[in-house]
């Protein structure tokens, strides 16, 4: 129910307090999304979308920071634990 999907604003179509709207691309699939709660989000910004409205902007710097943290953990674990290096099969895609 609280599912929310990341997408990129490709056009702001209308302004207005209640119905600020824009086109958002979800990996190529474009939908109209209400942007009333992200007043400072514009063209090119990434947002998380839930039931037709943008919950908030995605902070790209924060995203990179967490990925960097995962990369560091990976580096460390590769040195000390064999399952990371030697073909890990426990992960179900």
């Amino acid at each position: 129910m609280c599912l929310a999907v990341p997408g990129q604003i490709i056009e702001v179509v209308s302004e207005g307090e209640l119905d600020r709207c824009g086109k958002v691309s979800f990996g190529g699939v474009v939908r109209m999304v209400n942007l009333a709660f992200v007043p400072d989000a514009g063209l090119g910004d990434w947002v998380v979308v839930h039931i037709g409205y943008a919950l908030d902007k995605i902070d790209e710097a924060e995203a990179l920071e967490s990925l960097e943290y995962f990369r560091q953990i990976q580096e460390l674990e590769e040195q000390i634990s064999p399952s990371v290096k030697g073909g890990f099969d426990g992960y179900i895609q």
Partner: protein
Amino acid sequence: MKFIDDYRRPEAVAALVDKIKRVAARKWMLMEVCGGQTHSILKFGLDRLLALEVDWIHGPGCPVCVTSVELIDAAVELAQRPDVALCSFGDMLRVPGSQRDLLTAKALGGFVRTVYSPLDVVKLAAVDASKEWVFFAVGFETTAPATALAVKQARSLKLTNFSILAAHILVPPAVEAILSSPANRIQALLAPGHVCTVTGLKDYARLSQDFKVPVAITGFEPCDILYGTLSCLEMLEQNRYDAVNCYTRVVKTNGNPAAQKTIYEVFESCDRNWRGIGVIPSSGLRLKAEWSDFDAIEKFALQTVEAKSESECIAGSVLQGEKKPDECPAFAIRCTPDKPLGAPMVSTEGACAAYFKYR
């Protein structure tokens, strides 16, 4: 896709799993509050990867599962009125009421329409004045801003044929009720990332202090869930507790103030009956008096009478983390997604449905 694939990379998942295995000196009991997280944990097999480190308790975070029988009955009654178009998220259609579900009401001639957003219902009401359009407003703090926005739009468009059946619920009072229970076994919490996107961290910081439990605000991809789990286990092993944000790309400390403002312009908190759990004080949202012209219960003079839930179903124990779905005697035998006895088997995010699909 950006912001998804990176958080599913098998190498990163493996490294996080290994790190968690090294951090955990024993098995800990974690509750993931949100049904979306339950779904991810089972879908990606995280519970199997960490079978010795984490006992996952699946929390009450599926609004479809906890909407009370009397509200389902009210929706069914509305759907059966000839003048009403009852609009609802698809998941709600097969949740059993005391007599029937919405899908049956539809088969019997009721007008039931599945919608993606309450904002769509406002548009439908604006173009079709021949019907009373009612939105069955279920969902947590994540969903409530859209309903509040829809109500505000309806007023600005001067619509008189739009109303809502308000069933919104709030996460922190439910978590508090579970942690306060003498039967509570939960040692740390994965808090619901998209609820916190709206509300911020405040309530979860308070819960962490009040109950001395580690809390990690967590996203929904495998790496997000493992990162939250790792943070909780690190705190548990070091005998610390705090509320930490492990979903910083989306969740800000103060949440989304514009969304909060809109919720509390239109709604106020009220006591609410949670299916299988009971009445939890201040755990729901109802329309404020000045917005009562959009309240379907008043508009159609509905009587909501408390109704009994199904007997064999142990959904209450499942939703409070006391039992696992496969401990229910009806699980996968008399209760399946095709013939659900209880709500957690209906919703795709219900714990019973997740066990049925992935186990």
